[in-house]
């Protein structure tokens, strides 16, 4: 079994003191894996990965990235530590051009490395090339997600963390996003993915966790979880894929 990249142990986090949202959640993500986190609406999936990314105050537990304790690291240091995060909503700078959205994320790269790295992103996401000087706010939903992912990948992260990249997209874009993620993994990038679209996520994932009320309640091989009765039960009898359309961030 390959080495552990992200190791989250008994994480507790919340927005206000005394109101824990994440209540002792633990997951492990190994090198070049796609790990999926499923769960009903309001289970705390977004809060969980936002806490990992340093955006929600952590009150207990630890987060290790490549063996290093990053539990207390401020959000802006995460890219340097190797964790790139793509939030569920508002994940681009709408008034900046596509190119500036990429450039602004290059703060930790060597200055002379940047132009080539941007071209590499355009090569990986050809849809963005024609739009390079368009304001990102004018992109279609699918293109926005591509830009957000490109922006996260540009810094060579050890792990790419995504919050519902398919939420709010039309079916055509949804399959495009999942194809893109499968392709990114093939290039060796480790991915932690939160999804409501359980079927599609489990199809590209290696392993998955089910998060309920802020705690990981079930774990398994992604391909086996789709027909796992425990998962259906945790979703309160709903089929996971129809458990919701993805609510507020």
């Amino acid at each position, binding site marked *: 079994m390959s080495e552990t990249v992200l190791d989250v142990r008994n994480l507790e986090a919340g927005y206000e003191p005394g109101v824990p949202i994440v209540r002792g959640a633990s997951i492990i993500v190994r090198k070049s894996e796609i790990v999926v986190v499923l769960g009903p609406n309001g289970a705390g999936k977004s809060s969980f990965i936002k806490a990992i990314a340093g955006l929600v105050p952590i009150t207990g537990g630890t987060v290790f990235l490549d063996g290093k304790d990053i539990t207390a690291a401020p*959000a802006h240091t995460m*890219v*340097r530590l190797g964790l790139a995060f793509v939030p569920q909503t508002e994940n*681009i700078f709408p008034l900046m051009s596509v190119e500036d959205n990429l*450039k*602004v994320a290059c703060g930790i790269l060597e200055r002379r490395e940047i132009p080539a790295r941007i071209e590499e992103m355009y090569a990986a996401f050809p849809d963005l090339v024609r739009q390079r000087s368009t304001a990102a*706010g004018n992109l279609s939903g699918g293109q926005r997600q591509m830009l957000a992912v490109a922006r996260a990948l540009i*810094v060579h992260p050890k792990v790419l963390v995504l919050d519902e990249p398919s939420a709010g997209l039309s079916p055509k874009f949804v399959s495009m996003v999942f194809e893109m993620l499968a392709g990114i993994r093939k290039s060796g990038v480790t991915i932690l993915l939160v999804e409501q679209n359980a079927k599609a996520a489990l199809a590209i994932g290696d392993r998955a966790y089910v998060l309920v009320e802020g705690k990981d309640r079930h774990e398994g091989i992604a391909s086996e979880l789709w027909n796992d009765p425990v998962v259906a039960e945790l979703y309160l009898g709903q089929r996971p894929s129809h458990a919701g359309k993805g609510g507020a961030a």
Partner: protein
Amino acid sequence: MSLQFVVDGLLTGSMIGLGAIGVTLTYSILRFSNFAHGDFMAWGTYATLAVVSAIGATFGKVAPIAPLSFGWPLLVALVIGMAFTAILALLLDKVLFSRLRSQGQAIIVVMASFGASMALRSLLEFTFTSRPTYFSRAIQIAMPVGFGIRITPDQIALLLLTAVLVLGVHLLMTRTQTGRSMQALSQNAALARIVGIDVASVVRVTWVIGGALACVAGVMIGILVQIRPFMGFDMLLPMFAAAILGGIGSIPGAVLGGLIIGLAEAGAVQLIGAEWRAAVSFIILMAVLFVRPIGLFGVRER
């Protein structure tokens, strides 16, 4: 009607515009209206004046540079004054604004800036009295340049200086990583952190730019008009009107807004009398808020 108002308007507009850059940056990046910005101008001007006097006391009388009314001491003093004003702004942020900002209520920060404004102004009055003073009492001869317009060498130099500074800030905002970080922070603070931007350091840059330009604007007023403790406070309304007219967050907008208000003020003075000068900013401000609240270069929030 004489076209002289164009020169007067452009000069007033330059001062307003340089000040409005700071206003618009603080508003878009720190999300509050800094009513102490005018007093940064006054403090910067008095600091510059103090350095000019100190240089005069040390080196004796220095001859002005050819046609201008001032010599190298003022230029050196201006740079020192800009640094001083930047530090003043950083200091005020550290002891006052940043603490209140962390509580997350913008109105408290605005009120604090009002208090800081009064305190800063009173300190100036206390130290330097409210009597006007000047960088130089020499009268400059205005040169005719056609169309009934006359302009002094000082005025030409200051217009050029404004153009250079505005271009510099614009390039900084659009071409450098620092500028992109500032734009990013103004559009989405959480995402800015996610992409690795250290908010605290961008905030510091914002204060340095705003403070330094406030000082330049103040010194321009000092050279062309006079130096008074109220000189900056009196510019607040035109500066905010310019920032809002240009569209909050837009550097070119703030400058264009300043020039429009400067020209409108100068035109109004000539057409309907000097007592209407102050009303011009107010009328323009109201008109913008009614007709196009996002301003000329503003973009609707998502």
